[in-house]
């Protein structure tokens, strides 16, 4: 099956600092990548959708200035959380879309801000 690896699995950063997370599709080429944040209450917020060589589409309440994303090829994407604060904590999930329908998720990067 399709595998999506996310790194790191957990990270702790000081308030006001930044951290970068990575997403790697293994064994397949993703037609698009979506970044989500899952809150402690388990709700999913879509941050942005990106396809290679196309503009990245950010959802309302999320901006490129705060969550810059790099998507250089069909199997790799990275996202940075700039100036992280308490409200940015959560499980950041990368979902890679295959064949324009199925979306496979990695195990996520859990961000704790102290």
């Amino acid at each position, binding site marked *: 099956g399709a595998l999506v690896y996310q790194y790191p699995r957990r990270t702790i950063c000081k308030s006001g600092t930044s951290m970068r997370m990575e997403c790697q599709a293994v064994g397949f080429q993703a037609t698009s990548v979506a970044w989500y944040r899952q809150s402690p209450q*388990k*709700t999913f917020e*879509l941050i942005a*959708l990106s*396809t290679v060589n196309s503009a990245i589409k950010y*959802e309302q309440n999320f901006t490129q200035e705060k969550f810059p994303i790099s998507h250089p090829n069909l199997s790799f994407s990275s996202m940075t959380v700039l100036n992280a604060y308490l409200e940015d904590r959560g499980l950041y999930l990368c979902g890679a879309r295959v064949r324009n329908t199925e979306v496979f*998720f*990695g195990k*996520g990067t859990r961000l704790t801000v102290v």
Partner: protein
Amino acid sequence: QQQVRQSPQSLTVWEGETAILNCSYENSAFDYFPWYQQFPGEGPALLIAIRSVSDKKEDGGFTIFFNKREKNLSLHIKDSQPGDSATYFCAASAASSSFSKLVFGQGTSLSVVP
């Protein structure tokens, strides 16, 4: 506005029973409906999915029943086992566009008691 709704919020069944998880949606453009299973500390794993052209999809002990007219669907987990205890998310998207986003419900927490 919650576009995808799930019920119940939590469900407890005895081992061997069939667990029934419900999902409804509002957007008529949605035509692809995956269910994800998530264990604590893990990312959501794609369990089974259905397209709106079908009214039933089976895979192992998991069955989706879909009612396009009523805009609802349900996931039946036959012969539930304690290992099936997890949170289940219903999601929806308009699969016609590669840039279409996956919208998640709030999840149903399932406990299977031995």
